[in-house]
């Protein structure tokens, strides 16, 4: 009686998708459409970070940096190679994959903290290069880039971001429920035990990191062509902190958790704008309270309660 029946879960998922699809017809306010689109962007980043931290058990500090890699690679190829932003986004994705392969190959073979330190170093080096190479990147002023879609409304972007998010969540769902997903979780639980049962842990880690980083770069590239400006801010540390907060608040190690956390925090951070200087304070307070009363995040704690109510042996 432990396994949740699939139908209510599937039903809720479907309901959420339908709701998100129809939201632009209900909310007639362009500003909130914009906020939700940004929310989807963060939801992708939180979802992919969660695969690393929540399932593979490896903390990457280069997550925001990979979004920036995607954004810059795409913006620069649109600018210099005169390609369409869609192709630019593909190039951005490949750039993320290539960088993550090298970082992963060099540092994921080592034990946990070395990987985290390597990603931190990489993110910092990347930020410095982007800021210093003014000639190419316009430094901290930011690089202007073409918009993905020529439109007066945010609604088309809303649907593109939603499609990217659904694609990310769905492919992640498939991977985690595949044989490879079992290997990811095995390595995340105990790398040595995973090795002992024949799992090539280095390979599992490198492939997972590559998948996660490529998707993150894709999201970053989209973000650039949505805003029309790519700056070092995209890869900044506060962005990383926000992604981590979103994942933890929503529920690390669960699939819907990061999405819920991202939308919620993005909404609050916009809503709290009018509080000016107190915004960050209230924001931090909210996070601390959530983590205090929902130890496994909002969704994670809810799921745990439902399971214990549903009756286990």
């Amino acid at each position, binding site marked *: 009686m432990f396994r949740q029946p699939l139908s209510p879960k599937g039903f809720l998922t479907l309901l959420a998708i339908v709701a998100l699809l129809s939201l632009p017809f209900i909310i007639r306010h362009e500003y909130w459409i914009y906020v939700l689109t940004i929310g989807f962007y963060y939801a992708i980043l939180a979802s992919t970070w969660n695969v690393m931290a929540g399932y593979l058990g490896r903390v990457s500090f280069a997550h925001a940096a990979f979004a920036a890699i995607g954004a810059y690679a795409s913006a620069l190829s649109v600018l210099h190679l005169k390609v369409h932003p869609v192709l630019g986004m593909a190039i951005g994705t490949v750039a993320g994959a290539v960088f993550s392969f090298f970082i992963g190959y060099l540092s994921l073979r080592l034990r946990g903290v070395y990987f985290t330190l390597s990603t931190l170093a990489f993110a910092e080096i990347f930020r410095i290069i982007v800021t210093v190479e003014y000639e190419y990147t316009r430094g901290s002023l930011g690089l202007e880039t073409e918009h993905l879609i020529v439109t007066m409304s945010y609604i088309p972007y809303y649907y593109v971001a939603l499609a990217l998010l659904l694609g990310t969540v769905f492919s992640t769902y498939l991977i985690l429920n595949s044989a490879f997903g079992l290997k990811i979780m095995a390595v995340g639980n105990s790398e040595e035990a995973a090795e*002992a049962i024949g799992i090539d842990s280095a390979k599992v880690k490198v492939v997972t990191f590559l998948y996660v980083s490529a998707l993150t770069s894709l999201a970053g590239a989209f973000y650039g062509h949505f805003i029309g400006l790519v700056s070092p801010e995209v890869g900044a540390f506060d962005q990383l902190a926000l992604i981590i907060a979103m994942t933890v608040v929503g529920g690390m190690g669960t699939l819907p958790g990061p999405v819920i956390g991202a939308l919620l925090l993005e909404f609050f951070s916009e809503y709290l704008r009018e509080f000016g200087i107190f915004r960050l304070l209230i924001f931090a307070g909210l996070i601390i309270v959530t983590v205090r009363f929902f130890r496994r995040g909002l969704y994670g704690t809810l799921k745990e309660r439902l399971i214990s109510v549903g009756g286990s042996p």
Partner: protein
Amino acid sequence: MKTVLRAQSVTKSFGGLVAVRNFSMEVGEGEIVGLIGPNGAGKTTFLNVVTGFLKPDSGRVFFMGEDITGLPPHKICIKGVARTFQLIKPFSKMTILDAIAAGALVRVRSKVEAYRRAQEIIEFLRLRNPERLCGSLNVVEEKLVELGRALATKPKLLLLDEIAAGLRPSEIEEMKKTLKLIRDEFGLSLVVVEHVMPLVMGVSDRVVVMSSGSKIAEGRPEEVASNPKVITIYLGERRGRARG
């Protein structure tokens, strides 16, 4: 009898401490070999060398006649050597079914097939409610899952590091039966590292005694038990323990 494992003059030291010294042993097909010795004798270190978790300073390890010295652990598992850990390493956040299925993946590609094999092993070990998380089990169940995970890799040689530690006498009796059944049903060879004498003496065809990294005795359980050198070591250890 075909030789499954042949370790030849294995030496492994940590800094100045020689944990395993010029140690050799063989395991035949279908044989259960007990490996005993006082704390710090080097038993776990030897298992780590055989399974690729440690590289020996010198000496070689042959499995089914093939030199496997220095291969990474997962490759050694693919060859057909499985193990359990003295300090168990459970997949705490995974279900029993998932944990054991993860072990089956080294032999089968599909998850469905892995689940089917895991289910067989779960029934064989009589584990109840395989949907429970591995982090929520009692000691016996934890040991059985550890065992099941290793069995799922379809090994020809299984190395058990103190599988009976922490079990009650009745549970040790059960474990003894289980180990013999595993040998017969799965047709594999076992190396049983153990301090629990009733288990290791009851289950082993042959016992190897290790002390300070070296082999000091070897033979049938009753021979070893009456060997003066072995008695001295164990008495000495008991005295040492009483003092400490």
